[in-house]
């Protein structure tokens, strides 16, 4: 069993829809939870991060962490064609350089 599980999709939604992405994990020591966005033919870039449990909102993006269920989510409201990308969840322990990545979910927003 992989340490971080993420449905690779692909996911195709119409413009304006809400995109819901999620990951589950098995390592209860994870404290930091990140979402990276990767456009085609580019490297990943950090989109959002949260520490421990709770929600965080940044514009149209909301990240949620439920440590009791070992489940994290990313929601994209009012999705735009420019949101079409692969979204990777990543997580780490408090004092560790190492990130554990999910497989990535490819999202296409149709105009």
């Amino acid at each position, binding site marked *: 069993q992989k340490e*971080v599980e*993420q449905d*690779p999709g692909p996911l195709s939604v119409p413009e304006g829809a809400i995109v819901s992405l999620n990951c589950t994990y098995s390592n209860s020591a994870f*404290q*930091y939870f*990140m979402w990276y966005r990767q456009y085609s*033919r*580019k*490297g*990943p*870039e*950090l989109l959002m*991060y949260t*520490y421990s449990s709770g929600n965080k909102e940044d514009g149209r993006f909301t990240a949620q962490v439920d440590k009791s269920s070992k489940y994290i989510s990313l929601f994209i409201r009012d999705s735009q064609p420019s949101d079409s990308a692969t979204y*990777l969840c*990543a997580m*780490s*322990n*408090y*004092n*560790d*350089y*190492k*990130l554990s*990545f*999910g*497989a*990535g979910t490819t999202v296409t927003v149709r105009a």
Partner: protein
Amino acid sequence: DVKVTQSSRYLVKRTGEKVFLECVQDMDHENMFWYRQDPGLGLRLIYFSYDVKMKEKGDIPEGYSVSREKKERFSLILESASTNQTSMYLCASRPTGTSGLDEQFFGPGTRLTVL
């Protein structure tokens, strides 16, 4: 503006060849990483360097070696390329910190095909 560059975007090599992938960062970061990215598997860490001439094995180091002679440059070496090393290779850098949250900055990737 932070920048991580990789020497090639696309590379085609033959089985048994020695392959060098170069990565340069201009952010004065101490930590540098090499990952490979495969469909359905996400990013897997090959090697990590926390300082010049220092390295640690990641999750999948077999068949790879690394070199870090200067702070800004981190090289990945495939001693004898094999077809199962066909993949996208991503380099990343990160400042030294005690927090697992410190952001890793990625290069654009090198797509290596081994025939």
